[in-house]
């Protein structure tokens, strides 16, 4: 009895403060729960149903997931997502490292200007980026073909976005253009936290610029590198706006990606249950990958 009363007293003591705290977080949690969390749970539920969005959903067990393994278009889409990864990760990160090296180890005049300019594409709407690059690749009078013609390289000109082998790299290049400023800003902020003594020590050991970069800078921005890696891999797996505006998956299925295929299933061919299964798969891939990469990154 005594312990019970004591317990109640303790509970009441904290409860009064809890009560206020819940008032503060309630609006956020409520909106989040209704508009984000509940739809996520529903997606998982619907992935085991067959549903056209109008009639009663029919429970079909794992059939949607079995179909995932046989869906040629989905496989092509996932392969394309994979092919997009270098354009989101390796290329922009390499450029970003290079620019970081140029901008940080010498007192570059106009440092702020260069940094701000390289970051500019990052703030643009992907739709606008798509529109601009679609025009750059325009077969008849796009800037790229015009430049090639001007340089006397007529036989290099082609309808870039309609070309079976060049469409994906062409869209990928636009993604690279958007991405490297982001990684660079991340890396520069990392470099600014590196202890200057490390560089001095390296210099005393006779290390040249390149060795300093390799032995001091790179290890110093390890965390930033892994964050850049994870976020850009996720961006490559989620690519949607850019493809929607530039190619919509064409030519053939050469630039079809997972989220576009999901969108088509859900809203154009009304296979809502199957689209939910794709969503579950995509989400799982992203969550597992980011977990593995981030825990791997922090382990070292």
């Amino acid at each position: 009895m005594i312990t019970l009363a004591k317990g109640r007293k303790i509970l009441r003591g904290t409860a009064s403060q809890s009560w206020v705290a819940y008032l503060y977080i309630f609006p956020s949690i409520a909106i989040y729960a209704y508009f984000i969390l509940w739809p996520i749970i529903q997606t998982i539920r619907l992935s085991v149903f067959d549903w056209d969005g109008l009639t009663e959903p029919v429970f079909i067990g794992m059939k949607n997931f079995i179909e995932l393994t046989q869906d040629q278009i989905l496989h092509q889409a996932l392969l394309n997502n994979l092919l997009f990864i270098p354009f989101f990760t390796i290329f922009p990160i390499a450029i970003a490292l290079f620019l970081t090296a140029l901008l940080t180890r010498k007192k570059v005049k106009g440092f702020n200007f260069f940094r701000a300019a390289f970051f500019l594409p990052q703030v643009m709407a992907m739709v606008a980026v798509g529109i601009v690059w679609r025009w750059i690749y325009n077969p008849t009078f796009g800037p790229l073909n015009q430049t090639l013609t001007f340089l006397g390289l007529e036989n290099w000109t082609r309808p870039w976005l309609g070309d079976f082998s060049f469409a994906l790299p062409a869209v990928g290049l636009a993604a690279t253009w958007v991405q490297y400023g982001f990684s660079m800003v991340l890396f520069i902020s990392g470099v600014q936290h590196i202890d200057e003594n490390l560089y001095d020590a390296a210099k005393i050991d006779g290390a040249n610029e390149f060795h300093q970069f390799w032995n001091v800078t790179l290890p110093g921005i390890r965390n930033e590198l892994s964050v850049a890696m994870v976020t850009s891999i996720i961006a490559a797996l989620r690519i949607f706006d850019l493809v929607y505006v530039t190619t919509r998956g064409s030519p053939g299925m050469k630039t079809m990606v997972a989220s576009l295929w999901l969108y088509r299933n859900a809203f154009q061919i009304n296979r809502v249950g199957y689209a939910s299964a794709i969503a579950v798969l995509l989400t799982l891939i992203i969550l597992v990958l980011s977990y593995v990469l981030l825990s791997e990154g922090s382990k070292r």
Partner: protein
Amino acid sequence: MNSHKITLIRQISRLQRNTRNLHIWLTLYGVLILFLLFTVSPFIINILAAFKNNTEISKGVFRLPEEWLWTNFVKAWMQARFSSYFRSSTIVAISVVSVSSLLSALSGYAFARMKFHLSRYLFIVLLLGMMVPQESYIINLYYQLRKIGLTDTYWGLILPQIGMSVCFGSFWMRAAFSEIPGDLEDAAKMDGCSSFDILWRVMLPLVLPAVLTMAVLFFVWTWNDFLLALVMVTSESLRTLPLGLALFQGRYARDIPLTSAGATIVSLPIIILYLTFQRKFMRGVTTGAVKE
């Protein structure tokens, strides 16, 4: 200013002394300028195109317009209904930014400064919202909102966007509020301030820079959002700028100057905001990267 001059003079004398150094500096700036061109030329040719007419486009993309035509902007604004898209984007963005910032400040404050039973669990649940991609809930969000008649309304664009924003916002504001020393709070409590007074009068002014960074991020995410608008909105009068631009491009694909003017109208507000809040942008987007 003086120290700049001194370093400059030092640099010049060093350059004069050593031609090898000169080579290094020339290569350095050469490479930087090359990348600068790669970065800004899409913007420049897009703006140039927006001022030309269709025949001039084919003559040379890097050439300045013979006559700077504002007609494309006028046409895009009136005929292609960019004025209406702009209004929708502004209504949605302002609602999302103001409400999300307020709600995030409230919840971030509670998470940072109060003890309550479910604190840890609720915070983890919110973090989940930062990690799952939009694609994982967009399908059922649509059907759920259709059932209660919120599709094809501003609410359908605003409320889900707030739901996404407060996940990052709570996380961001919790970090900001945690940095304030506890003495300040205790002193205010002694003076008999209520918890809301403490938040409003004592804490909030101290975290204002963090709030501003967060608000800028919310604005960019909302302004640039495409998928949510694509799924939710069917009436033309509710279309936001990115949605309007994407669908408009399908219709006027051949009118490059007009689409270029459209792309400029979509990007300009963000670019102006970016040039004003550069540092906040960079800090915010790179920290906010955890969200994406």
